[in-house]
C-alpha cells in the first residue's frame, strides 16, 4: 500500500531499514496478503541475550542479613525509580524486609523478600492477557504493554511480591517504565543482567559488607551460587507449594 501526500511526495511503503536490519535481530518475514505480514524471530541466537540454558537466581543467607539494614530496598528504589507512599494499603513494594519469628523458640531472622522468580509461577498461570510471563532464563516479568491491571497475579502470588500502581507516575527510569493501572514487581534488575551485571540489591548488600545476597546462574554447576546451594542446606519459601523459586534462603 502506498500513501500519497497531497503535495505529491510519496511515502515509504513499509518499515524496512531500521526495523529489519538495525534492531539487532534477524527476522523471517513473509507477506501473506496485502497489508498482512508474518514476522518471526529466529536465526539470531547470538544477538538474543535471553539464554534458555540459564536460570538466574538468588541465594539469601539470613544469618548475614542485619535486622536494621535495608540497603537492598534503598538500592532497588534508586535503581528502578519507585518509592513507598507511606500508605500500607496501596504501597508499592518491589522488595521489602521481612522478619520471621519461630513461635516455638522465639528465634527471629530478618530477610529481604521480593519476586521469587518461580519455575512455575502462579502469577503467569492466572494472567488473563499473557502480560505476566517468564523469560526463557527464568526471570518473571510483567509486560505492561498488555497488562490491564486486573491484579489477579497479585492475588495468586503467595509471596505478595507484586504491587499495583494506583497513581500517575512521572520521572521513570528509561529501563524501568512504570505507570498507573499496571502491576509491577522485582525484575531481578533485568536490564543489568542483560548487560552482564548483577541486581542492584545484591550489589548494595556486598557494599555494606554483609554479603548476604548472592546472584548467579542456578543451572551452571561451576557458578558460585550453584556450588553453595549444592554444598549447604537452603530452603524455598512456601516449599509446600512446589513452585521451585529461583530465590532461595539459607539459615532461616
Amino acid at each position, binding site marked *: 500500500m502506498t*500513501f500519497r*501526500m*497531497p*503535495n505529491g*511526495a510519496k*511515502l*515509504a511503503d513499509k*518499515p524496512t*531499514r*531500521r*526495523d529489519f536490519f*538495525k*534492531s*539487532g*535481530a534477524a527476522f523471517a518475514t513473509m507477506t501473506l496478503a496485502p497489508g498482512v505480514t508474518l514476522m518471526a*524471530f529466529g536465526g539470531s541466537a547470538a*544477538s*538474543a*541475550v*535471553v539464554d534458555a540454558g540459564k536460570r538466574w537466581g538468588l541465594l539469601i543467607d539470613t544469618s548475614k542479613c542485619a535486622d536494621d539494614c535495608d540497603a537492598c530496598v534503598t538500592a532497588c528504589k534508586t535503581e528502578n525509580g519507585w518509592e513507598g507512599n507511606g500508605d500500607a494499603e496501596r504501597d508499592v513494594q518491589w522488595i521489602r524486609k521481612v522478619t520471621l519469628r519461630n513461635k516455638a523458640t522465639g528465634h527471629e531472622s530478618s530477610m529481604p523478600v521480593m519476586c521469587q522468580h518461580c519455575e512455575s509461577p502462579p502469577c503467569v498461570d492466572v494472567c488473563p492477557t499473557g502480560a505476566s*510471563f517468564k*523469560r526463557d*532464563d527464568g526471570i518473571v*516479568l510483567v*509486560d*505492561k*504493554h498488555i497488562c490491564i491491571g486486573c491484579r489477579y497475579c497479585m492475588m495468586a502470588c503467595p509471596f505478595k511480591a507484586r504491587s499495583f500502581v494506583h*497513581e*500517575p*507516575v*512521572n*520521572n*521513570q*527510569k*528509561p529501563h524501568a*517504565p*512504570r*505507570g*498507573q*493501572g*499496571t502491576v509491577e514487581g522485582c525484575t531481578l534488575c*533485568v*536490564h543489568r*543482567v*542483560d*548487560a552482564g551485571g548483577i541486581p542492584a540489591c545484591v550489589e548494595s548488600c556486598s557494599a555494606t559488607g554483609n554479603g548476604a545476597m548472592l546472584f548467579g546462574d542456578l543451572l551452571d554447576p561451576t557458578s558460585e551460587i550453584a556450588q553453595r546451594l549444592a554444598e549447604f542446606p537452603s530452603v524455598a519459601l512456601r516449599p509446600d507449594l512446589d513452585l521451585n523459586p529461583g530465590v532461595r534462603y539459607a539459615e532461616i
Partner: protein
Amino acid sequence: MILTRIFLALCLFLSAGALSAADGVGPDIPQATGEPHPEGNDYMRRWHMEMLKHDRDLTMYLGIRPTDTSLAECFECHTVRDEAGTPVTVEDERHFCRACHDYAAVKVDCFDCHRSTPVDFDEPSPHAFLTRGPRFRSWGADDPEVLLAYLSQVMTEPN
C-alpha cells in the same frame, strides 16, 4: 463509509507535516536538534510507532537492549523547552509529541509508563497536573473562588 472517513483522517494527519503552520493549517511542529533522520521526515511520521512497537518486544522478551529505536532516544533531539529552558513533559501542550497528536486527536499512551523528557531531567510530580495541567482541565472546582461562586449560586437558586 467508515473506511473512507478513516482514510481521510489519515490523509489529514499525514499531510499535517507538509503544510506549514504559517498557512494556519496543520500543527506547529517544534524544531528538533541534531542530525535529521536518514529515512526522512515522511517516513518517520508514518512509521515511528511501528518502529517503537517492534523493538519493545525484542527488548522485553529477548533482552535485546541496544536497539536502534528507543523512546528515550527520541528526546535527545525532540525536546521542547519552556521559557526557563526546562524541558516540558507531555502534560504540557507544547511537548513535541502533542503537536501532532493533539491536532489529529490521536491519544498517545506511551507516557503513562515512560518518561517524556530526556533522561537527565528531573521531571516534576504528575500530581501538579491533576488539577492544573491541560490534561485534566476541570470546570474550576479546584479554584476556591469559582467553587464558592458556584455554591452560592446553587444555594440561592429556587428548586
